[in-house]
């Protein structure tokens, strides 16, 4: 690691910390939102962007100052490939989701049989008061849809999340994994990309098992773009475009009724 940490004793600790932080930054953002909630209500998506930004900044400063030179080459073609990849990804996601819906009668909300308690228009506090494990279990997609209909997800933010996720999951995380994996060169990169993609799929757990699979597939497409173009630029553009298209599609469904899952009735 050719960064600013020349002390060998610290390298392993720092590497372990960065690997863990890159694996699931969304959970960190959710925890930050819960911590800040008594002081100020902040959308988890904003915090997710901040956490991703800090992680990527940490990679650049602490571990590899030349990461930016490798990650962002000047490639005009990459922009076109990225735009095409985004469209293809969105189409693929729609097709696979439709096929999976037809194949299974199960809805995306795992605890759907439980009676609603938060009511049709719950407050932010009521949503956050859910046990995070239950919330991750049941409300991810519902909360996202609610925030979307409240206009809390600005399009540039949604696009930024896609770009930052690509840098984190398709470049920095596999690159960090390269230090602990026994393989080098292409096998090491492929293995790193697969592991990173597995975590990328898993962070969508709150949207249901179907979404884990579709995002895992999408991650494979973006990983292929990285491997083909040799940079993360095309995949970043593709992911940003995909997020924007997905947000538009979700907004189109805003008239659908929202049902929240029962929380605990009172104190402990």
């Amino acid at each position, binding site marked *: 690691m050719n960064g600013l*940490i020349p*002390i060998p*004793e*610290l390298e*392993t*600790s*720092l590497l*372990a*910390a*960065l*690997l*863990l*932080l890159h*694996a*699931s*930054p*969304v*959970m*960190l953002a*959710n*925890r930050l939102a*819960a*911590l800040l*909630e*008594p002081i100020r209500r902040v959308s988890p998506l904003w915090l997710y962007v901040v956490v991703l930004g800090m992680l990527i900044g940490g990679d650049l400063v602490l571990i590899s100052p030349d990461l930016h030179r490798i990650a962002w080459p000047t490639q005009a073609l990459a922009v076109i490939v990225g735009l095409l990849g985004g469209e293809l990804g969105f189409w693929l996601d729609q097709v696979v989701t439709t096929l999976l819906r037809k194949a299974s009668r199960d809805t995306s909300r*795992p*605890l759907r049989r*439980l009676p609603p308690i938060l009511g049709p228009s719950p407050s932010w506090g009521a949503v956050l008061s859910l*046990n*995070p*494990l*239950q919330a*991750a*279990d049941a409300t991810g997609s519902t909360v996202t849809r609610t925030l979307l209909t409240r206009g809390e997800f600005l399009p540039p933010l949604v696009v930024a999340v896609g770009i930052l996720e690509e840098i984190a999951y398709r470049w920095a995380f596999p690159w960090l994994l390269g230090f602990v994996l026994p393989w080098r060169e292409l096998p090491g990169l492929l293995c790193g990309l697969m592991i990173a993609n597995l*975590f990328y799929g*898993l*962070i969508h*757990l*709150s949207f249901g*098992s179907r979404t884990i699979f579709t995002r895992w597939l999408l991650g494979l497409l973006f990983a292929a773009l990285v491997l083909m173009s040799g940079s993360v630029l095309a995949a970043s553009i593709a992911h940003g475009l995909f997020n924007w298209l997905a947000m538009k599609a979700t907004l189109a469904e805003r008239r659908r009724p929202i049902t929240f899952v*029962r*929380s*605990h009735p009172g*104190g*402990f």
Partner: protein
Amino acid sequence: MSPTPLAALSALGWILAALLLQYVLCRRLIMATARHLAEQLPLSFHYPTRDVALTLAVAGAGLTALGIAWAVSWANGENLLSLFTEHLLPLQLPIGILLGLGEASVSMLLSSLALAVFRPWRQRQIGPDLINELRTIGRAGWVRAYRQTLQIWPAPLGWASIALALLGEELLFRGLAVRLLAPEGFPFALVASTFLFVAVQAQGMPSWFSALPAMCGALVIGPINAWLFMTVPNILPLEIAHLTFFCSHDFIISPLRCS
């Protein structure tokens, strides 16, 4: 000199004896003593005696773990104090915080996954009572003791008790288990210490299902801390990571928010 099977068995025997002493014998003694002490304390007028006893047991468990780790280390010719003083770099402490945050985020992801995977199975076992069990997750067993410690005692005392209990765990599973098993090879030390660390998380929990999040947390902390301990044998950064891990969890955040 290469390690012999007898040496491995001897190390495992020492570790198992220490864990049995801490988690079976001492646990009962601590609870009985804590209950007796709690009845004498004025706090019992304001809080249920059982809750006060639980909070005393947290600190008691930390103290006994410290004593057991010291005694077993001494018996094996190891110096426990060196785990605090040697190989310590100031920069390791902030990295410990980062490490704790990372461990917390991955363990939350694994916990959510484990609950989602095992929920249908559990639903077949207990039916509609599952929702009640889901509500108590992160609020029952030994987790409740930590929550009560923060609610009942003044913040510095509460945090000191929790830090002591976590230090006891780090000393038993890293300072003792990893160090004694290290001569048998790094993979064996890592797997065995993690297995034991995951196994003890289930004790005191109402059911295997409600123990899943704690076990997932141990599954993340166990190998990572063991790996780092093998690299830099100092317990303080790992203790800070463990404490940060606890701070970032909802069962710690919720009572603070309520207060």
